[in-house]
């Protein structure tokens, strides 16, 4: 009921963003920077965001890594397990383009070949501020979904 009133009369997202992550074959560099965003220095909980351990509760999926063959089905399943509306943020050059692993024999990625991506955050690894900005931009995607202007798959906000 409260959610309905917030959406109808205040025209805002009824809840803060909850974020889950999927390492699709990353070297862990980006994942360490993601963990840094919840540390006291960067503190994404200031914005109501928090990392959750399951896609079933998440609004935003952060993907790191260039998507190895082994992780393809798992990434797809995790994406499909998130309730709608949802947004995908790719963190790091590997997930965005494959980077130095581009066209490697064991890759099925980059990420946008597997699932629709909304925000790309570049860097190797990106700074925590950039990751926070990327997730904040996912709000635009979710708000646009709320207004019924669903963005096409793969269309990036940034």
């Amino acid at each position: 009921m409260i959610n309905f009133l917030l959406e109808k009369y205040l025209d805002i997202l009824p809840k803060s963003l909850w974020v889950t992550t999927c390492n699709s074959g990353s070297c862990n560099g980006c994942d360490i920077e993601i963990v840094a965003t919840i540390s006291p220095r960067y503190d994404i909980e200031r914005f109501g965001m928090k990392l959750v351990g399951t896609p079933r509760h998440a609004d935003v999926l952060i993907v790191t890594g260039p998507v190895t063959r082994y992780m393809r089905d798992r990434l797809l399943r995790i994406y499909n397990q998130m309730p709608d509306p949802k947004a995908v943020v790719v963190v790091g050059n590997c997930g965005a383009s494959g980077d130095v692993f581009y066209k490697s024999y064991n890759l099925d990625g980059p990420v946008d070949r597997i699932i629709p991506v909304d925000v790309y955050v570049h860097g190797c690894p990106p700074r925590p501020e950039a990751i926070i900005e990327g997730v904040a931009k996912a709000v635009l995607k979710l708000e646009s979904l709320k207004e019924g202007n669903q963005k096409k798959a793969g269309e990036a906000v940034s």
Partner: protein
Amino acid sequence: MFGTVYTGFGYWDVTSWILFFGIAAGLTLWLRAQGRDDYKEGTDQDEIYWSGNVVPEDGEDISVPASSAYWGFRKALEPYYNRLIGMHTGIATDIVGFYVLVVAFMAVFILIA
């Protein structure tokens, strides 16, 4: 039949019990209603999250048994455990037999003492 029972620390009666059951049930249902209900039933959104894997029919193949944590302990006491495990057949008559034996030993010691 529906009287109040005084325990010395408080009391118990049917009316209070039903009242507090109702309050607890109401709270529980309210908490449950706060969860997301916008998932699509019959899709992957309805499935159990198993780190992205297909949920196995039998988890034994991919799970690590708790006994692994005691591997060194069990290895060190292997003769003792082998004998114990050998004695545990899982047959009810064997268990009752052990029970009778232990009671018999205890009775003998008590009678002698």
